[in-house]
């Protein structure tokens, strides 16, 4: 192996084929000893919101501090700097992203000066291709040059309120037709592009902009999405006025300005339907801003940037704005203490990982089917399923579990799937499928997930659990997984078959530093 690259995003296109081996995404649990050189190429997500920057770079540095002593002495180690953000912040006085980048780059410099054979690399001179970011987690593209820094645009008069439509604006899909479970929010494209847009709406709310919803839907349905959809980033508390009905939107906007006691000229109306925008613009003779909405979800970041430029960017927050900001920073206040960790376990403990193992439901089935299609590395049996097959499997009295993971840095959503079938006598169970997305690898989560399932099976008085490891070209990372859980090769069966005697295997415990959210 010529070179080993630690990374947290898709970077393969930037390295010659065959000479480089990559870590998993943000995975520092496996460090090969036989590479000729090592590289540290962590990147910030493009368009990162200010409130997340510091937590992220501190996490990067904690990982790097754990990796550093494990790099074989004398071997070259190259550390890539983070690029300065391409766009000006929403609030110009808010230097959190810039400060976080500098904090990180300074820390790299210190590390490089302390370890021999350690060098710094400049940030790559490329820009983001949003399409490839949302599709493939590629933080910059070889075909995009980094934008030249420009003087930030500031509107003469800052607008006060952003009025948002719902269907195909805040999420992909039509609530009334597709139902709550089929909406595209979070997860893969285009859901991740809508999640990005929602995150930016929250950033606006935290900078003092009032958010309102104006949507042609049943109000109860929309409220249910805001309250119950696990991938929603915008929540009820971010919204100050609701007009969810089948009335004319111009009328709804009149009511919203009356309710909020602001002028029509301080509204920005965001709706994906040209018809609605035209109607509203005509009704108010152009007083009200009705920016054109992008047709393709991956153009949302460019749209957001233009919203900031044209209507919402400001020099600094007023006291009133700041009070609002404080109000939004509820229970999610993060522990900002900087700690140094000497072991991977300590580090994992510090992430405050929360796991939720739950039976499959209407929300999770589409994502679970997708996981079975896409997961290659940590996948015991690699049985591909579509949604219909999973439904059939459930209808036959079997169980499908989803694993959702969140930590103090963010929410990974559903990253694990397991399918369990039961014998006729109800005494034994078989793990038909078990997988964890590569996004969540390297934090011991697979073990916690499996142990949680074994606990649930034991609670159902299951005596034996069967499982298979079917090797593929890609799934070597889980080769020793079953034995590590206490499974033994099954007698008189092919090498791929394993069994665990739940009556004889003693206590099954999930490491205490994972918090298990109660199953619904």
């Amino acid at each position, binding site marked *: 192996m010529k070179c080993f690259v630690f990374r947290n995003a898709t970077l393969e*296109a930037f390295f010659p084929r065959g000479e480089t081996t990559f870590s998993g995404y943000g995975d520092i649990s496996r460090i090969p000893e036989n590479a000729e050189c090592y590289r540290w190429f962590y990147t910030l997500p493009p368009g990162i919101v200010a409130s997340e920057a510091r937590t992220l770079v501190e996490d990067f540095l904690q990982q790097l501090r754990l990796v550093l002593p494990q790099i074989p002495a004398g071997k070259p180690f190259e550390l890539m700097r983070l690029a300065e953000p391409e766009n000006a912040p929403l609030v110009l006085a808010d230097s959190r992203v810039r400060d976080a980048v500098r904090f990180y780059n300074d820390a790299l410099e210190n590390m490089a000066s302390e370890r021999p054979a350690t060098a710094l690399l400049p940030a790559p001179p490329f820009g983001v291709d949003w399409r490839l970011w949302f599709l493939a987690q590629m933080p910059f*593209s070889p075909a995009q040059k980094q934008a030249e820094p420009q003087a930030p645009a500031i509107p003469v008069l800052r607008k006060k309120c952003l009025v948002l439509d719902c269907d195909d604006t805040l999420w992909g899909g039509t609530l009334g037709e597709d139902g709550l479970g089929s909406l595209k929010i979070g997860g893969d494209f285009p859901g991740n592009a809508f999640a990005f847009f929602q995150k930016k709406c929250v950033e606006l709310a935290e900078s003092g902009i009032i958010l309102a919803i104006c949507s042609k839907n049943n109000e109860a349905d929309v409220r249910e999405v805001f309250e119950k959809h696990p991938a929603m980033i915008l929540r009820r508390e971010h919204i100050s006025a609701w007009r969810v009905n089948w009335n004319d939107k111009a009328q709804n906007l009149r009511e919203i300005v009356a309710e909020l006691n602001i002028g029509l000229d301080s509204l920005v109306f965001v709706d994906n339907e040209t018809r609605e925008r035209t109607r509203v613009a005509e009704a108010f003779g152009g007083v009200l801003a009705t920016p054109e909405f992008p047709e*393709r979800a*991956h153009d949302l970041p460019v749209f957001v940037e233009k919203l900031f430029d044209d209507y919402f960017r400001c020099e600094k927050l007023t006291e009133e704005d700041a009070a609002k900001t404080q109000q939004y920073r509820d229970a999610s206040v993060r522990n900002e203490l900087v700690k140094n960790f000497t072991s991977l376990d300590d580090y994992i403990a510090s992430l405050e990982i929360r796991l939720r193992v739950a039976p499959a439901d209407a929300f999770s089935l589409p994502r679970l089917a997708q996981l079975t299609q896409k997961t290659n590395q940590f996948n015991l049996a690699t049985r591909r399923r579509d949604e219909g097959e999973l439904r059939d499997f459930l209808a036959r009295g079997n169980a499908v579990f989803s694993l959702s993971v969140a930590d103090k840095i963010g929410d990974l959503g559903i990253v694990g799937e397991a399918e369990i079938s039961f014998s006729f006598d109800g005494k034994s169970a078989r793990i038909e499928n078990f997988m964890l997305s590569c996004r969540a690898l390297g934090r011991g989560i697979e073990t916690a997930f499996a142990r949680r399932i074994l606990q649930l099976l034991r609670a159902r008085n299951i005596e034996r659990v069967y499982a298979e490891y079917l090797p593929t070209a890609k799934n070597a990372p889980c080769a020793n997984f079953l034995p590590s859980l206490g499974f033994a090769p099954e007698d008189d069966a092919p090498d791929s078959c394993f069994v665990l005697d739940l009556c004889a295997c003693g206590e099954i415990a999930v490491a205490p530093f994972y918090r298990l959210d109660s199953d619904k």
Partner: protein
Amino acid sequence: MDSRLENVFKTTLGIDAVPAELSQTNCEAWDSVNHLNLVLALEAEFGVTFEPEEIAAMQSLAAVEKLLAAKAV
């Protein structure tokens, strides 16, 4: 087959021949990483941009040829 197209496939996937029936299912090297590399190489070679839906649909050589033809390449 267009020789530029053939070259893109050979160099990106590291294969010696490009059979007409080449697809993700019959070519080990055509994995998700190389799929992305293929998109980048095709866009650079032919000066086109693919929509996300098109990238997802590009599961065989035939599909790629059809998409390029639709972009009048």
